[in-house]
């Protein structure tokens, strides 16, 4: 196992948990990123401004990272652009069909022991692993 970073990952996870907890306890909202973004693309009156604030915060956090922790954007592995475009399409479409992503299902839903989210999380980790297996092992890591 290389580049194993359990402590940094645990600390980052705790921050994600605190952020999602604040959204729940203070605002009564679920911090599911794909859902928050989709709500901005299809705005409903009175349910849009908080989404824009959250997403603006996300970008502000990104800018802070760029200043304070530039390593966060050392991507390490960038697929060829056509594959990235297909990946983006699948992520956008799939998260809408399945009503959530890593944050909404993987963190918020799993913590609530929601059967839907447990199944969704197991499914996206499984297909993610399958695609990585196909690309890295059968395609010989050429991509």
């Amino acid at each position, binding site marked *: 196992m290389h580049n194993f970073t359990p402590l940094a*990952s645990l600390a980052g996870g705790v921050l994600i948990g605190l952020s999602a907890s604040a959204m729940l306890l*203070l605002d009564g909202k679920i911090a599911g990123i*794909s859902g928050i973004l989709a709500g901005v*693309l299809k705005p409903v009156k009175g349910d849009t401004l908080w989404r824009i604030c959250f997403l603006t915060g996300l970008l502000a956090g990104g800018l802070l990272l760029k200043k304070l922790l530039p390593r966060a954007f050392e991507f390490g592995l960038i697929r060829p652009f056509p594959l990235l475009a*297909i990946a983006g399409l699948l992520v956008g479409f799939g998260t809408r069909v399945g009503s959530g992503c890593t944050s909404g299902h993987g963190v*918020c839903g799993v913590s609530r022991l929601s059967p839907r989210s447990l199944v969704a999380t197991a499914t996206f980790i499984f297909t993610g692993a*399958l695609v990585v297996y196909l690309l890295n092992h059968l395609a010989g890591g050429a991509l």
Partner: protein
Amino acid sequence: MNALLTSFISGMVFALGLGISGMTRPVKVISFLDFFGTWDASLAFVMIGAIAVYFAAYRWSSKMPSPLLASDFSLPKPSDLDAKLILGAAIFGAGWGLGGFCPGPALTSLASGAPAVLIFVAAMLVGMRLHTWVSKLGATTAAWRASPSKSIQDA
């Protein structure tokens, strides 16, 4: 107003968490998903950390009559665990494994200005729009099938 400030700060903390944890680096994500190669278990610790905190917060929230800054909790309505959910999650997972980005880290990484991220995010937005069109088309077709005499506009 305070609720909006919470949203902004939460978004910022969320992004910092993603960056510190390694989620913004596709190499970490893809290594986490590479169970049969050089598996890097780090991202399991992201989930452990986030779930431990949120599990406690959720239990606490269930005892609160309402959130502190809003009139009520808007939690997802319980719906069926159906084929649509599994299909959607499967499609999302395939894209996640392919690109190494999921929505939160992709949006956060826009700050890097990297063309790869711009391409991914643009495609992700198209994918979301595509879903809106497909579901509209599905609804229209279903309504038309249910009552062929009705015009499409009525549907």
